[in-house]
């Protein structure tokens, strides 16, 4: 189920600015970025402002608010995207991460599906 695969099991990395997450598209097919929404991220119970998150796919980086403006950029169904989070990660080897990704499949008008994936992730 997509709900179990959005957060990749070995996908949490500490960075100078905070941390990165390796994530998967929560649908069976590729989607354009204009139909993808990073709706909510909480780490260890703390909600992180989505303005502090950058979204990278195909080697290109977008602000989360700008995704809707990119119908030409595809997130292939097998590829990871990366969230670059400009917010410190608490010390410790394991963290509780909950990510909600919204999609609007472009052939189903009015369908806005929010999927929340919650995992305890080890820092890699």
């Amino acid at each position, binding site marked *: *189920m997509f709900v179990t695969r959005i957060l990749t099991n070995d996908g949490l990395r500490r960075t100078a600015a905070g941390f990165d997450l390796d994530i998967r598209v929560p649908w*069976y097919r*590729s989607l354009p970025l204009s*139909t993808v929404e990073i709706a909510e991220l909480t780490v260890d119970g703390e909600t992180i402002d989505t303005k502090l998150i950058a979204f990278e796919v195909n080697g290109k980086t977008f602000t989360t608010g700008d995704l809707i403006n990119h119908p030409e950029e595809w997130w292939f169904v097998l590829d990871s995207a990366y969230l670059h989070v400009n917010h410190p990660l608490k010390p410790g080897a394991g963290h509780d991460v909950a990510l909600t990704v919204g999609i609007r499949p472009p*052939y189903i008008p009015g*369908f806005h599906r929010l999927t929340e994936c919650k995992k305890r992730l080890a820092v890699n």
Partner: protein
Amino acid sequence: MTTVKGLRLGVTLFSFTSEYHGREYSLDQLLEKVAVLGLGPGVELVGFSHVRGFPNTTDEFADRFKSLMGRLGLEQSCLGINADIFLDPNKPMTADESLAYHTLQVETAAKLGFPVARYQFLAGPDVIRRLLPTAERLNVKLGLEIHAPHKVDSPEVMEYREMYEKENSPYLGFIPDFGASATAISPAYLRFVRNLGMPEGLISLVQEVWQQPDNPDRPHGKHEDFVKRAADAGFAKENLSECFMAFGLFSRMEPERWLEIMPQIVHIHGKFHDIDEKGEVPGIPYEKILPVFVEGGYNGYMSSEWEGHFFSDEPGFPKVQAHHALAKRILGRA
């Protein structure tokens, strides 16, 4: 082209979404396993799932794919194409843009050797009418998928039937999805939403509204009624998006109704979400549905389409094997 007549079995690789999205099997490995397990010969792909760069493709990919299919003794049955009218959610495609988008997908279907392209009703009859010369030139039949909540006589489907009658081309057809002939919401869906923590009162409301008589003029009417009643009852909005699926995956058309369009059926989606220990599909009466297609003289493939991966992480291959066994039993080929 095969010369076998009647209803032939096959599979859509959509059934193996867990294996594929979960990176356990590549496209090539899925095809190899389909061949080993004898789940062909018909193989259906979803363009936007299985072809990187779709609606475009490369000569190299096409050559490798066709050569692998041939080596494995499999046959291209149908390519799923999409009416992505809302690529930009705020600015739907114009008819000309949609025609160009569909043309490219049909060209790719031809390049990959598919005789049928499954399209979606959002394309619109006028775009499909304009796409017809391309389909005829490339020898790819266009099949409108009739999927829940639509029926053979829903207003949106009737617009296509009227256009088909005027054009009178064998390249214009239909693809039934058997989720449209359900008798109940699949227990797989109900287990899933219970596990998500959806309130029991809301689950009951979904089932109650789903069981009500259909209004043929309002295929989406039940979902609209449900949303209103759920909001009136004070249920949280975030639970409602999963309820949409119950009305979009299952609807209740009597199997005999497929006879009305039988000569125009070019492919079938043998949809199921669950298969029990007796080898039956709860909520979709295959024992009534398949004889209708035998009686109607259907000649073409049925892709076994396990969609339970929306609701479960169980592997798809045993589900499809059980579905083939069910179809063979009903068709007397066991």
